[in-house]
């Protein structure tokens, strides 16, 4: 009787090999347990418009937590070349601001957690300002065949979470923002982390916080540069060419901190950056784990963020 050769593969090597053989998963690098894989050719996959709290009366939505726009299943269709399409298939998830100064569009996917530990969020993304015919050129760098003024009309996009440990635990939001350009149109092209809590409906209603200018923070200046976080991304010259970028964000719900952010070939160590905690409890947010994406325009030009696909994974 022939003995069966003992495999040299460990369980984790086997899992990695099986994932690598799946073309959709092979471009990601998930932790041990995958929470979800969202390909937007199959629908919106639970990514919904964020809304603030209310008493069934929409008038009581606070100003910064209303009209955050429904996400769209986008074919990336443009005026010059028609349909660009997504990485696989036709559709990607698109967030679109209004053509209104400082308007933000945010989508959310809502979970709870089984265990505290590492959570990893991976996605491929691309971003653009909307094509505007007859763009005014005053004060802007002119089109020279390579640089396009629309590159300076894209404001920022932000990754964030919402973690609640329960009424006797902490609640906090990690938020990482890529600022492409400032209000003057000057290119910034850097990553930032926030330094104050996100004012909530309860904080506004009880007078703990004023209605903020910036959804994520008490004061619009409450952001600091991520060390070594300068990163020009691929705009590719005109507003109708979309190049996908890889992003991997890890946060740690045990330490209540960001861990690291990788975007293409840049990996930023975030472990020592503080994450502001609320100094008061929240009812009904037991083991809350939400994932959020938003895009914000700094001018009266619509800004778009497309995502295709998303993989979230955990270490438990």
């Amino acid at each position, binding site marked *: 009787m022939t003995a069966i050769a003992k495999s040299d593969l460990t369980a984790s090597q086997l899992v990695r090999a099986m994932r690598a053989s799946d073309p959709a998963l092979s471009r990601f690098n998930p932790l041990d347990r995958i929470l979800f894989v969202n390909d937007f050719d199959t629908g919106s996959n639970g990514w919904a418009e964020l809304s603030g709290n209310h008493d069934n009366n929409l008038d009581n939505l606070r100003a910064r937590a209303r*009209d955050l726009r*429904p996400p769209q299943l986008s074919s990336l*269709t443009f005026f010059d070349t028609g*349909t660009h399409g997504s990485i696989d298939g036709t559709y990607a998830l*698109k967030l*679109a601001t209004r053509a209104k100064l400082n308007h933000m569009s945010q989508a959310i996917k809502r979970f709870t957690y089984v265990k505290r530990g590492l959570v990893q969020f991976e996605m491929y993304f691309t971003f653009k300002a909307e094509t505007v015919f007859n763009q005014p050129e005053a004060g802007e760098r002119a089109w020279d065949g390579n640089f396009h003024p629309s590159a300076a009309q894209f404001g920022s996009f932000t990754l964030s979470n919402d973690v609640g440990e329960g009424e006797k635990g902490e609640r906090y939001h990690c938020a990482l923002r890529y600022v492409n350009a400032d209000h003057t149109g000057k290119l910034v092209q850097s990553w930032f982390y926030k330094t104050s809590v996100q004012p909530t409906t309860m904080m506004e209603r009880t007078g703990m916080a004023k209605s903020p200018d910036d959804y994520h923070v008490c004061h619009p200046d409450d952001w600091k540069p991520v060390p070594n976080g300068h990163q020009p991304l691929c705009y590719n010259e005109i507003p109708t060419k979309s190049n996908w970028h890889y992003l991997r964000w890890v946060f740690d719900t045990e330490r209540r901190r960001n861990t690291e952010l990788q975007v293409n070939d840049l990996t930023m160590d975030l472990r020592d950056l503080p994450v502001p905690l609320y100094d008061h409890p929240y009812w009904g947010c037991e083991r809350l784990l939400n994932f959020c994406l938003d895009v914000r325009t700094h001018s009266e030009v619509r800004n778009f963020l497309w995502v295709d696909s998303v993989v979230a994974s955990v270490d438990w």
Partner: protein
Amino acid sequence: MNAMRRFFTAVLEQGNSFDGDFQTDPYETGWASEARWFVRVLDNGGRATRIAFQTELSPDGIVWVADETAPVELTIPAPPLATFLRKDFGNWLRLNAKISGNERPVKLVVYLALKE
């Protein structure tokens, strides 16, 4: 396994107030074969208000044209919910609303219910 039909309701106006004509923001609907508008009137803005709704189409989300149907007219006071269906469109839809006779702003919720 048979795939279920994809469905998505987008709230394009979330209880916003209008004192004049408006158009909803561009919305991509290329995956859907039918699009049903629902317009809920939250505040009538005055007794004589009339609103004419016209679906508009676009090849690119930038340049718009009215579709081939007659406008849907809503006179307020009226049932608090109006609805109309579009079946032939390209990738982009928006709603053009012409408001007349109002004495104060009209508050509306505009839903776009999309089905594959």
